[in-house]
């Protein structure tokens, strides 16, 4: 553990420990949200966007044909 290391300054060693702890907790926060199931609204939205595009394509084509 880093605290056991003899450094020129205790403050330096503490800073490293605290910094690591902050990093761990940030990662926990981030991973907690990232591991939640994705709300349906996002899949629905993407399906809507994709099907709107398909409709546009068809419109374009029929426009060219006429």
């Amino acid at each position, binding site marked *: 553990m880093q605290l056991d290391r003899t450094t020129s300054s205790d403050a330096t060693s503490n800073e490293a420990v605290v910094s690591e702890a902050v990093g761990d907790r940030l990662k926990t926060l*981030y991973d907690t949200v990232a591991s*939640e199931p994705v709300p349906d609204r996002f899949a629905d939205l993407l399906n809507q966007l994709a099907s709107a595009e398909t409709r546009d394509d068809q419109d374009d084509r029929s426009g060219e044909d006429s």
Partner: protein
Amino acid sequence: MSTSFQNGLLAAVPNLRAFAMSLSGNASRADDLVQDTLVKAWANRASYQEGTNLNAWLFTILRNTYYSLMRKRRREVEDVDEAAAAALKSPAQQLDHLHLQDLTEALQTLPPTQREAIILVAASGMSYEEAAEICNTAPGTIKSRVSRARKRLAELLDGQHPDVTDDGSSSGLQALAV
């Protein structure tokens, strides 16, 4: 192309939500940000180069969306925002220890550029180079922002200033590590 792009976007949603939540500190605002990001990403999909880092590309869009929303909100509710900003500067002691909610609040007290830097590097696992690209700055700048953010968060979450530890009374800081 568009089906795999669609799947790629969907697969990125968990990371986008985590980034948005860390950045905005508010779950419903975070999901609105993700939604706006997906709509913009879809509209601009021609500018995405296949084979490059999709998450980084999406993070860039989300970040830009976040900042333009913040600017818009500031214009709309200048007074309310000032009150909110004042509230954010409340004493660090008010932040309890070791809870994720507190960390979310502590993050909100950081300058936005420090906040995004530490989230990208320490939480989402981006390299300094990737984070620099997303934030449109140099890796060295990201590095110093992360370092300042870590220091500030450590102070806030510990409820004391680093000067206090100069005399060796470091028990509070060490408690953070357990």
